[in-house]
């Protein structure tokens, strides 16, 4: 179930976060939405926890991010397809302008922190690596 957003910036944050998340481990099914919602909730909480003098400029920067894609793709970020969203994010995160990079860096670092420390993901990546190690050991033997 998708979380309800209290304001437009939360919807935008959630769309960026979804585009920022790495590929889920294979075999994940119904837990995927649990993880995704937990990450979105966490990131929104982190942005809302910023000092007020930083939170408002940051949200303005997010709106700029959304509308600037009109000049690149003729659509706002929210209306882009998955691939274009990903390319557009890459354009911002690799920008020579620090302010543009920082918009993405803040969201990415919060999203990855919660994603990789989520018990579902941690459990799955630990098991995956253990299985991989076992396979290597069997091959060596």
């Amino acid at each position: 179930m998708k979380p309800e957003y209290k304001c437009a910036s939360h919807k935008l944050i959630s769309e960026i976060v979804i585009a920022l998340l790495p590929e889920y481990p294979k075999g994940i099914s119904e837990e995927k939405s649990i993880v995704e919602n937990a990450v979105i909730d966490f990131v929104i909480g982190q942005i809302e926890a910023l000092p007020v003098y930083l939170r408002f400029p940051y949200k303005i920067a997010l709106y700029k991010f959304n509308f600037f894609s009109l000049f690149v793709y003729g659509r706002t970020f929210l209306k882009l397809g998955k691939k274009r969203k990903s390319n557009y994010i890459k354009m911002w995160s690799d920008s020579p302008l620090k302010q543009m990079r920082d918009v993405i860096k803040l969201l990415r670092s919060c999203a990855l922190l919660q994603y990789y420390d989520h018990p579902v993901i941690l459990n799955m990546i630990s098991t995956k690596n253990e299985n991989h190690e076992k396979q290597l050991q069997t091959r060596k033997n």
Partner: protein
Amino acid sequence: MKTMKNNYRQEKINTQILVIGSGAGGAVTAATLAKAGYSVVILEEGERIDTNTLETHSTEAMKLLYRNRGMTPIFGNTTIAYVEGCCVGGSTEINSAFWHRTPEDCINRWTKKYKVKDLSKDSLYKLFNEVEKDLTIQYSDPKSISRSSSLLKKGAEELNWSIQEIPRAQIKIENSQFAPGAKSSMSRTFIPAAIEHGVKILSNSKAIKINHGNGRVTSVLAVSSDKDSKTMLTIEAEHVFISGGAVQTPTLLLKSNINKNIGQSIFIHPMLKIAAMFEESLDSHKDPIPIYQIKEFMPDITIGGSVFTPGFLSMLFCDNWTLNATAMEKWQNMALYYAGITGKGIGRIRLFPFTNEPFISYRLSKEDQSNLSKGLAYISKLLFKSGAKKLFPAVRNLPFLETQNESDYFLNNVIPFQSMSLSTVHAFSSCPMGEDEDICAVNSFGKTYGFENLYISDASIIPDAPGVNPQGTIMALALRNAKYFLETKRGGELCQ
């Protein structure tokens, strides 16, 4: 203000001593004064959280225990991430619990430059003996030393570098200090002792203004919140001790128009993190953090190990995510380390217009830049000696290092300020102590200049960066201030 007041319930409290903040400084102050017979109230902005059931470096802990959920930036020639606690027990609930006594060279510097009176190694270390009794300061169980620690030690020994195991304020030595209930933080030591002696703790209660006139604090205004309501507290105390930490203490004072040498300086220990990938699987996320620190380059540069989770590792990769994302697959072969420096730059705390929030700025000096760059070169050299195959520093456009030649480049060349991703958990000196009234905010025993009954006992009175984890210094100085207060007041107003 008038409208806001009308929506709040009003309550008046009278006490002999009001302590604002319940961290390393506040808890010691409250417990010491309460034991001596004073009636004491502690105001704590944060909640009382049961850390017996919470891993204190988890994202859940960030939400509950950290100020701004860990989202406090320091602005300057590069942005530095700063974290501090905001809960009963303050930052002692979230720190690594490493325990250092104040280095002798710091004591000498403070007595000379800031003219701190009656401060010597002997006198301060006697106070350390007292606080250490209640904290179970101990070395780790040799059986529980993590693989990442052993690797740090191995590298240092091969290079013949001086290395030291750091003791910790820890109850369960076999566990990670971040494990539930592992640390002897304030909520498990000095706060229960204070409560036993009658101290009343008001959690979720934020001091918003100090009312004063004719060199005396007349009352403190605070807002106390619970789920359903807010209460405006007016606390009248004979003496007020502020122990909100290096950022919150000057913020409250500036809001209250008390500004002589307040927030004019702030020193920090900036830290550059690095991830090391080894051939073997380390499973660092299950281990305590590395317990060794490299002393070879102290006091300017300290090298050590950092707490590891896959989440923290991914955050470090953020600067070069496109290039390093695939390295996450090898997270079990990695550990996190840091090169920290004793900052030589200087910062300030100001109130942001309209919001009255603290705005923290800090300019790294050229020496800081050089030390951080050298720190990267040294830690890389050590980790390659320990067997690391690839290193990932938190530096933009420097995704990884594969040979020592690459890292040696930073012995003579500096990393651009804007490329460094730095963090800090140590801030001090925003209200320095000493007898030099031109640069100090409080006297040698924490009494605020120009006030009869206002004291500061926390990291903000430490005159400059000590170069070591400061919890011990904060606690010893708080005990020193409390004892001096008792000596000067004894026989006078103490209730019998």
